[in-house]
């Protein structure tokens, strides 16, 4: 009714009046969150990409994020575009944490390119290390069943609803059980980095699949 409209209008006027001094500061803050990456030579030295490749990567990165940094929401949006049928936000959250090595809440170009360097040009050891880091949500050096279950659910969420066979509630849990049976050698309920790397190196499938993305760039 008309009364409700008046209420909201008066609220808005009040809020604007109160927050006016703060909002200017907020705007200043936002505008200063711009990031310029280190020079091309330094990045070339730190990563395994050539100059040309870094140029291509940066152009794409800067196009999508003109301010030079990606915050978590934008990251989730970008990643969700690749998986139209499911919900990629949980997995994107874990991925964001894995890439954001200095944990400052935003992904700069250096973080982005360092991560890619490991994934695309690193040794198998480094890749497995990265994967372990991804699964270890609280970064304590151990993968527990709960952490693995979270990751697994996030991966299954990306599939969405319309799958064949139909996704059941206990599918992620079963998958985690299989994973732990394979990885947890001493059956102590957690997987350490050594167990993980040992097990993966002995698995032919995993070793082969580590190499399929080598020609991505």
């Amino acid at each position, binding site marked *: 009714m008309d009364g409700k409209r008046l209420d909201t209008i008066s609220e808005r006027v009040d809020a604007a009046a109160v927050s006016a001094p703060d909002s200017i500061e907020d705007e200043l803050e936002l505008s200063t969150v711009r990031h310029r990456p280190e020079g091309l030579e330094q990045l070339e030295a730190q990563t395994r990409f050539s100059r040309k490749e870094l140029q291509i990567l940066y152009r794409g990165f800067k196009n999508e994020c003109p301010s030079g940094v990606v915050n978590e929401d934008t990251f989730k949006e970008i990643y969700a575009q690749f998986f139209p049928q499911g919900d990629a936000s949980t997995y994107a959250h874990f991925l964001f944490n894995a890439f954001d090595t200095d944990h400052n809440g935003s992904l700069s170009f250096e973080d982005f390119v360092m*991560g890619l360097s490991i994934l695309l040009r690193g040794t198998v050891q480094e890749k497995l290390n*990265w994967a372990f880091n991804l699964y270890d949500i609280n970064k304590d050096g151990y993968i527990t069943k709960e952490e693995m279950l979270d990751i697994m659910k996030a991966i299954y969420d990306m*599939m969405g609803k319309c799958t064949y066979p139909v996704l059941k509630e206990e599918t992620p849990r079963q998958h985690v059980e299989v994973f732990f049976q394979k990885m947890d050698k001493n059956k102590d309920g957690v997987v350490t980095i050594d167990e*993980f790397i040992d097990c993966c190196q002995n698995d032919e499938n995993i070793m082969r699949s580590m190499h399929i993305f080598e020609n991505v*760039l």
Partner: protein
Amino acid sequence: MATGTAAWLPFARAAAIGWMPVASCPMPLAPRDNSKKKDELIMLNVSGRRFQTWRTTLDRYPDTLLGSSEKDFFYNEEAKEYFFDRDPDVFRSILNFYRTGKLHYPRQECISAYDEELTFFGIIPEIIGDCCYEEYKDRKRENLERLQDDQEDNKDMKLPNMTIRETMWRAFENPHTSTMALVFYYVTGFFIAISVITNVVETVPCGATPHHKNMPCGERYTVAFFCMDTACVMIFTVEYLLRLFAAPSRYRFMRSVMSIIDVVAILPYYIGLVMSNNEDVSGAFVTLRVFRVFRIFKFSRHSQGLRILGYTLKSCASELGFLLFSLTMAIIIFATVMFYAEKGSSSSKFTSIPASFWYTIVTMTTLGYGDMVPKTIAGKIFGSICSLSGVLVIALPVPVIVSNFSRIYHQNQRADKRRAQKVQKTRQARIRIAKSGSANAFLASKHHGLLNELLELTGTEEDEQKLIRNTSLLESQHHHLLHCLEKTTAHEFVDEHMFEQNCLEEALQSYPSRSPSVSSQGSCTICCCGSRRHPDPRVPRGPLQELSALHIQSSQLAVHPSSRSNLNLRAEDGSRVNCKGGQVTTAIISLPSPPSLAPHREGRHHPHHPTTTTISNVFRVKVQLLEKMLLK
């Protein structure tokens, strides 16, 4: 795909390494990037103005002119550039679309020129960003209306082959079409005026006669006025009946406002005829005569402005309602206050709160008749506050109403905004279809992918030419990514229709007639873990791995021309037939699908029919014992 995905696809694919240790099945091979050429600058010469961009920028949208091989038609060999003989100003926005992923509509451009450019470059207008979409749609609508107006002016010429009904209807709606219509228009207008004037003059005191005192003319010249009334009502009745006869949709005509006004205008007369001059009902009879004044509304057929006024009032209903509501609030408050303030004074006219309403209304609207006046000091104070606030309360909503009226009077746009909301829905639907197109494209490409893999692994050079390459490299990489996710989770993407069918089939497991086929479905799993070395095209991607039943098209059987039932069932109706027919027997038959057949079938299938695509590799066949056959 949008710009973002193109730039971030390598990142997403690299991040897929996170799935590898978790996956239980081997991953599919990545698509080969055969075009190893480096990223190069492309020169686009549009009527002399040169634009340059990277090739990959243009490749982001492979279904447009610039993103596909269609631009090769415009390649200029000597200058090593692409030449387009089009408007360079509009081309700016089009190229910016490739760069930023958002299409903007420049306000100074003519809408039809812009549309033409979009069509030329193969870009659908629905992609226009939210910032510019409303403007674009408004302009497009105006343009359309202008075109329609022009057409209507041309349509006024008499068309041949119109029935009497249609001619009459056109004459009624558009008096300028023929002289007869104009005559009719003026005659009815004249009689409406006569009728209204008669009603008015009827009540004027006519002067004293020897027999009676001053009486209104209506009672003195009863017969004359009665004749006038009869004549007018007869004209109106004839007019109404003619309109009813000529109306293309009688039901809609009877429901329209103008016809209701017509009926209300002539009804009192007939009711008066029917009723006798009974004393009991004469009171009601008098009330009915009031309704005769509604005849004046018949003028709205003759005046466009009147119709717009009525229309505006209807659309300003919320503002009017707000005005009324605030006034009512203020009236109640002030009436209460005045009543209690004046309670003490003697011989006060403020006998009750409702009685004070009259004072409050008269004061707030600054009329001030003076028939009710406060006497106490407190009453006078509150009275003055009342009159001041009255000015404010009325002055606030009125400009809103006035501005609304002027806006609508000049534009007539409110109804179109409502139509625009429907367009908004269609726009969202199209964007959704485009988005789901990417999901469907993945499902469709899975079939192509299987054949491609087979040909790549086993085929010779000539076979490689036969690869079905209707997806760009970007798309094939995206599909590979989705394929990896499928392998990681050991589940497949299916489209909605198939998913619902699967749920349905799983629910129907209780039906005994279906048990053989369903058990075969239940047992099939996606066989991928370790045992597959070569991608087997025989393993279909659809939900039915083994063929559950054999359906022979009824046309192959001996169909008697006198057969009553419709025997032509398509393959997709198979499941529904099962639900109904008790006469269905099923057989488990396994047929290999030869790869030579599959591409032919897929070539025929449009990607917009995912149901047929997903079962293209599977022959879903049923044996049906037909009653007709038995009866024969």
